[in-house]
């Protein structure tokens, strides 16, 4: 993959820093406006994070740890973190009290009463809207579970064992053809879309990019380990039922079996994973690190916030007049 074309001043400054050999002089100037769903800023951050995943054919791998690049990344991350804190404050203030962090986390997920994206996809979405949805999620799903692999070496004991068990399942449980990333690529191809890694990074929204970047923020910074675990558990816990609805929408539209297959797999897999991630991963981690409970819940709230923004954004794009009428 080559470095994508920038889409504004921030991603342009990032791209320049990655391409030049004289990085020491590079810097980035952020807008005063919020950056949480800003496509330009989020694309810039995505480029920086991608250096730690599969990188770019036209960027020297040395750039990943170049001090100037790390400094630019910190400038972007600091503002991203502040806005995530701000955006999740109300959700966290309303989080149910309790001794069991898994019960708290699952209750946070169940309290969500946001836009009904999956129900719309199930009952009303047109073929183009379904393809739009698959495209928006493609950057995230084509490297599904990779961010969480960065969490493993930072864990110990029961939480590590439980996360490894989940990752083994996500990575196909010993069968390359069941690798979830591959299943998503097959779903894209089945829907007539480009299945190459990062193919749509220039087309997806700032919100979709932020949903990808928040995982990397938590995965690549050890200080956010607990948030990464909470984010992962909330992600898994809000997947099984929506996946069933999306699969049924895909079948209603008559798309090939491979497209729905990805979502069918996630109904069963994530019904398991939500329990293991919340109880065995987060539960075991907080039992050993009681001071990290709030950070686990913060990570969960970040996922819920971005998921709600994304749902509202897509419904407003497709059906601005009937958002309120889509049943739960």
């Amino acid at each position: 993959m080559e470095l994508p074309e920038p889409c504004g001043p921030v991603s342009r400054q990032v791209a320049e820093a990655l391409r030049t050999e004289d990085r020491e002089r590079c810097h980035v100037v952020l807008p005063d406006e919020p950056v949480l769903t800003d496509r330009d800023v989020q694309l810039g951050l995505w480029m920086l994070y991608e250096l730690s995943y599969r990188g770019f054919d036209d960027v020297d791998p040395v750039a990943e740890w170049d001090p100037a690049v790390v400094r630019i990344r910190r400038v972007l991350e600091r503002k991203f973190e502040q806005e995530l804190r701000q955006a999740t404050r109300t959700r966290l203030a309303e989080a149910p009290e309790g001794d069991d962090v898994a019960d708290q986390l699952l209750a946070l997920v169940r309290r969500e009463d946001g836009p009904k994206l999956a129900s719309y996809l199930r009952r009303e979405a047109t073929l183009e809207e379904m393809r739009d949805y698959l495209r928006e999620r493609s950057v995230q799903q084509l490297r599904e579970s990779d961010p969480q692999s960065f969490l493993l070496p930072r864990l110990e004991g029961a939480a590590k064992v439980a996360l490894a068990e989940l990752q083994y399942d996500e990575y196909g449980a010993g069968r390359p053809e069941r690798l979830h990333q591959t299943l998503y690529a097959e779903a894209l191809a089945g829907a007539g879309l480009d299945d190459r890694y990062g193919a749509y990074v220039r087309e997806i929204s700032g919100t979709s990019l932020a949903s990808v970047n928040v995982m990397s923020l938590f995965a690549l910074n050890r200080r956010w380990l607990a948030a990464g675990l909470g984010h992962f558990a909330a992600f898994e816990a809000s997947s099984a039922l929506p996946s069933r609805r999306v699969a049924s929408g895909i079948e209603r539209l008559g798309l090939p079996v491979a497209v729905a297959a990805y979502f069918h797999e996630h109904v069963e897999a994530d019904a398991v994973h939500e329990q293991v991630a919340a109880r065995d991963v987060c539960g075991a981690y907080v039992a050993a690190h009681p001071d990290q409970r709030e950070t686990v819940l913060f990570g969960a709230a970040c996922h819920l916030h971005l998921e709600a923004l994304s749902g509202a954004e897509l419904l407003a794009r497709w059906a601005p007049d009937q958002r309120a009428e889509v049943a739960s």
Partner: protein
Amino acid sequence: MSAEVRVRACPDGPVLVRGADTVVDEQGTAHPVTRPVVAVCVCGLTSRAPWCDGTHQVATRAAQGSVRADE
């Protein structure tokens, strides 16, 4: 699969089963286990018996009056 089978109930959720080769449903049909841990439905609402499909969440929320149960 390992010789030891471990089973654990989740509050308001499924039963997690580790180490099993098959799960036999009420009709006597054996369903092969293809993942390291499986969630077996205990609320009876799943559309993918014997596996949990997350519908218990809707049942719980419907009981609390916040959503319709027909999803």
